[in-house]
């Protein structure tokens, strides 16, 4: 009897302690910065000395590389890759059970996020949906795509669900396919994906409900319906290449990655290991719609950081002055200015890039027309964006990712404790601030060097004349230095949150 009373007392005590921990944990990032759809960032600006060192290094390395290429051209030929298909790793990944498990996991997580979003507690930090969508999936999947390989292509739940339905239909009505088999108009290119990408960036940056679970889940369902409609009309493979924006975006990022899945005939896949970045070398220029999508991605990555700088705060204050008293609302005016930014940033990027593409074509003696030049070199800018993305989100991912630990035990916010991790206390500053600085500068300078190298190799292939290739690269390097400087400048700015 007394023993039972004692355990009760201990339990009650534990419960109060738990309650305190949870309330603290939930408040750590209490809906502060709206810039990333979800969560707050506490990054320190890069100190001036490091900023200058990074900028100096960028310029110096650019010149050193051009001087080096003047003496000795890098080989323009094929890159070496190692076939991993028959190694232990390749066999493990190629085993049907493993792939099926990955797909099922993808579908299960998708369903969990949607149901939690719709039926769970409507609080950004007590529901698993916002952290899964904005931190784990959007930021984390970009990390994985760029650093490891195209995971999204394997686990894409929308693709899996449609493929399963297709297989089911084929079993019930043999010989019939689950598609209307309309011919996809070639002039449409990947424009659906480009437009959807802008809409997605708007949701991340401007949408006031971006961290609301139910709104997020509804948006996911809406997008799923759109994707399945596209697949139904034009076929699964066709829509994945043209309209499923995340297949395209993560696919583009994964061109930087060191692994490559390639068709090896008879419906089999081979897994190759290759050097970082070589997937971005293109022999043929990308289409206009892909060109715009890539530039919109670059613009979105930079704009996402730019909106936290004091400069943007000033712009916003100028065009959408804050309301005088706290009761009235200036949110709508701000949303309009931000929307203008979301649309204006990619337009600006496209305009600037086209000017430079003209300079590159001119530098290369007009051997290659501007339209081809623009499509040839655009992918070589991607490493700079990836490097900035890694630098920008490192500590955010380290902090926001921790929310998954308590949320895994209580994904709906109903007060369950499935794995006993409900009371995990989220730690800020998990990655040391100084380490974040050095990793950021290191990543950005490395990304720049890789970009300059890739552009030069692309030029050598395109011009087959070393002198012309070199001349064409002066404007390209100038553009890359500018773009890298933007990244460095942003991370040297103190984060300002506008409220």
């Amino acid at each position, binding site marked *: 009897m007394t023993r039972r009373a004692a355990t009760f007392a201990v339990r009650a005590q534990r419960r109060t302690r738990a309650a305190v921990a949870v309330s603290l944990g939930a408040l*750590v990032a209490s809906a*502060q910065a709206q810039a990333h759809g979800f969560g707050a960032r506490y*990054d*320190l600006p890069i100190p001036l000395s490091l900023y200058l060192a990074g900028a100096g290094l960028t310029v110096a390395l650019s010149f050193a590389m051009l001087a080096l290429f003047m003496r000795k051209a890098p080989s323009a030929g094929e890159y070496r890759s190692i076939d991993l298909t028959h190694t232990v790793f390749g066999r493990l990944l190629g085993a049907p059970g493993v792939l099926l498990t990955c797909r099922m996991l993808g579908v299960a997580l998708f369903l969990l996020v949607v149901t939690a979003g719709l039926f769970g507690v409507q609080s950004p930090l007590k529901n698993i949906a916002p952290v899964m969508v904005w931190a784990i999936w959007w930021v984390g999947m970009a990390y994985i795509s760029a650093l490891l390989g195209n995971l999204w292509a394997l686990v894409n739940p929308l693709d899996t669900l449609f493929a399963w339905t297709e297989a089911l239909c084929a079993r019930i009505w043999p010989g019939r396919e689950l598609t209307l088999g309309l011919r996809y108009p070639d002039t449409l290119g990947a424009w659906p994906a480009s437009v959807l990408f802008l809409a997605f960036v708007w949701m991340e940056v401007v949408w006031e409900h971006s961290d609301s679970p139910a709104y997020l889940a509804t948006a996911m369902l809406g997008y799923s319906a759109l994707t399945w409609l596209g697949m139904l009309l034009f076929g699964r493979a066709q829509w994945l290449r043209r309209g499923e924006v995340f297949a395209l975006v993560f696919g583009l990022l994964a061109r930087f990655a060191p692994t490559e899945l390639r068709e090896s005939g008879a419906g089999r896949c081979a897994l190759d290991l290759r050097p970082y970045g070589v997937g971005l070398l293109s022999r043929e220029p990308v289409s206009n719609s892909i060109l715009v999508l890539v530039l919109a991605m670059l613009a979105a990555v930079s704009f996402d950081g730019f909106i936290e700088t004091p400069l943007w705060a000033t712009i916003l204050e100028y065009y959408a002055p804050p309301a005088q008293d*706290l009761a009235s609302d200036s949110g709508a005016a701000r949303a309009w200015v931000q929307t203008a930014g979301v649309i204006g940033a990619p337009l600006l990027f496209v305009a600037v890039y086209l000017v430079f593409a003209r300079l590159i074509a001119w530098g290369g003696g007009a051997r290659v027309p501007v339209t081809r030049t623009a499509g040839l070199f655009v992918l070589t800018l991607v490493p700079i964006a990836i490097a900035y993305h890694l630098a920008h989100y490192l500590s955010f991912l380290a902090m926001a990712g921790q929310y998954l630990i308590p949320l895994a035990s209580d994904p709906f916010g109903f007060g369950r404790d499935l794995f006993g991790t409900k009371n995990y206390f989220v730690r*800020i500053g998990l990655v040391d*601030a100084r380490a974040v600085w050095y990793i950021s500068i290191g990543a950005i300078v490395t990304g720049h060097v890789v970009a300059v190298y890739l552009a030069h190799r692309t030029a050598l292939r395109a011009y087959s004349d070393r002198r012309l290739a070199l001349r064409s690269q002066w404007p390209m390097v100038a553009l890359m230095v500018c773009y890298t400087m933007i990244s460095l400048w942003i991370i040297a700015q*103190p984060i300002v*949150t506008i*409220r």
Partner: protein
Amino acid sequence: MPNVQLTFGWPALGALGRRALAVLLGVALLGAAAAVREFDLNILKRRIEGGGATIRVKRGETVLLRWRTDEAASLHVHGYDLRAKLSPLAPTSMRFEARVAGRFAITAHEFGAVADHESRQKEHRETTLLHLEVLPE
């Protein structure tokens, strides 16, 4: 004599080690005592008087914020997640150890009579008063 000290529970470090330990302890105490950074912050018309944009401290220092205000306000140091209710009647002190490096907003959630009105918490608006930057040492 050294044996006596050993029985008192001193770690068996030898005379030199013990002396070093004592010196280190002294330095640490002195350091801790010296590293209190005090800031007097005065809220006037919903802004920090003199436009306090950013206060900077080093990690490991103790921060003491002394608040005065002309209007009741509910205060929040983000990241460290410290909260306080300020009243124009008496100054309020906030004391904490800056353990984690980063840049943290200090915001006022509600001013005036609504400051202690809990029910409106959902639709509250924050005003950033200033930022606290904790720099790595």
